[in-house]
């Protein structure tokens, strides 16, 4: 009783370590294990339906066949070239989109006149599926690396730009008043209010852009190219190598999930202060 903190009207009671029981390992990870169970059950069902000849593996492939095909493409080394080509295309296209989209979005959100000048083009291109530009891009850039970088860039830059712009434009007026009241200059207002308050939108833009970038890679490579994961899937599909197509799909899916996870971690790092970021 002696060291109990008494709440007085001048000093709020300081927080202390919680005495609550920590839930067990299973309880904390229940949804993870449920998901894991569902996936394993699905894979077994898939494999069994092929083993029991309920479906034709030429159409459906099967987990064991996919693993075997996956092992084969990694063992003979043929996949590495495709992986590096797609990886470079992604890194260049996405990187360029971030480097150009974020500053442009900030500037367009901040300066009304610049926004008025650029908005028609941004709106038109944002509304158009960028894949529709693929024939034009092939004419301009040919079938090698640069056309894929271009399509990935175009797919990605607009979601990033538009979201960043919205973030800058929808600053809470009260925050602006506070900053002004303390005598903040335009530059300070920008750095201390506009930028931090648009971070959540910016990150949403990066995440949306990621999805568009993956579409850009696959469609771009299928449309016209000589290497890459999309190209590998295209040729495997044309020769009915369903197992290899599946390997390609899994590679794309896993990289998409991994990249999203990386962004999610960055987001958590930045959004510690948001009440709704937990749970």
């Amino acid at each position, binding site marked *: 009783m002696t060291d109990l903190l008494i709440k007085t*009207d*001048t*000093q*709020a009671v*300081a*927080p202390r370590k919680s005495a609550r029981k920590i839930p067990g390992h299973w309880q904390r990870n229940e949804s993870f294990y449920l998901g894991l169970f569902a996936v394993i059950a699905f894979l077994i069902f898939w494999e069994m339906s092929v083993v029991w000849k309920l479906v034709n593996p030429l159409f459906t492939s099967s987990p064991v066949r996919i693993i075997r095909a996956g092992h084969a493409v990694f063992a003979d080394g043929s996949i590495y070239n495709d992986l590096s080509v797609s990886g470079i295309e992604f890194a260049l296209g996405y990187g360029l989109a971030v480097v150009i989209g974020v500053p442009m979005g900030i500037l367009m959100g901040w300066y009304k006149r610049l926004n008025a000048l650029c908005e028609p083009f941004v709106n038109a291109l944002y509304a158009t599926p960028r894949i529709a530009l693929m024939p034009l891009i092939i004419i301009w850039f040919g079938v090698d690396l640069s056309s894929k970088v271009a399509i990935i860039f175009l797919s990605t830059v607009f979601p990033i730009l538009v979201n960043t712009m919205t973030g800058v434009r929808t600053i*809470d007026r*009260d*925050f602006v*008043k*506070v*900053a*002004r*009241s*303390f*005598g*903040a200059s335009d530059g*300070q207002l920008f750095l*201390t*209010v506009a930028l*931090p*308050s648009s*971070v959540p939108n910016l990150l949403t833009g990066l995440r949306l852009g990621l999805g568009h970038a993956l579409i850009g890679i696959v469609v771009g490579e299928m449309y016209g190219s000589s290497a890459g994961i999309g190209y590998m899937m295209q040729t495997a599909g044309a020769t009915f190598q369903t197992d290899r197509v599946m390997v390609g799909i899994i590679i794309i899916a896993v990289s998409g999930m991994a990249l999203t996870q990386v962004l999610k971690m960055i987001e958590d790092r930045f959004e*510690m*202060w*948001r*009440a709704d970021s937990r749970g």
Partner: protein
Amino acid sequence: MGAQRNKKMEARDVRLDFYNGRMNSELPVLDGIDLTVYEGELLAIVGPSGCGKSTFLGAVDGLVAVSGGEIRVDGVRVDRPGCDRAMVFQNDSLFPWRTVVENVSYGLDIQNKLSKSARLDRAMSLVELVGLKGFEKHFPHELSGGMRQRVNIARALATDPELLLLDEPFAALDAQTREFMQVELLKILGRAGKTAVFITHQIDEAIFLANRVAVFSARPAKVQAIVEVDLPAHRSLDIKLEPRFRDMQEHIWRLIEAESARTGLITSTVGA
């Protein structure tokens, strides 16, 4: 109280019109405000809803430009926000991405007057002053409404302003928290030794906190009356039960009520 009182803030014939672009019309909001705030006092402003109290405070802070007349703080004409004034806004408007201590040091960061470690020390001492020691690393969403307003007040005090402006800082709090915060504010201001202008629509809050209460008329606002609050400097909430407190409350309410009735804000003048 000494006979010689230094004027901290002086407003002379302050006029302010709002321009409505859609209607292409001018709306007079302040119609010649004359008001003096003396050093060390707390002046409360009350008045009918929408009478322009907050607009006046915004003008004193330098956020809103006046259309006529002038406001001087320590003899210097106000035309923009400055280090000598600090505002406590109605919505606590704490930056959600800054921790408590980072919020408190915001003004210092902007005004860039001290070294980084000195700013942090000063912010920490203010966090303690408002009774939030132990919460300095918390984010605003982890605090209660009353605690957030304490941070808001600390943020304004951190820049060591000559004149503290408070725009209905407790309006969003529940009745109980508000009463406790009134006592707290008196203690905090007593410790910090500041001159302050406080806007409220709660008459009892005005009387409880202030040395003088300025009653604004309905829009366009003028100073309708100034009521001296003849209560001891150290006040506890019990004082609100005393007859002279009640009398003052009644008196100010009559002034506001008459004014509201005159402008059709309320239709009858049946006593409360």
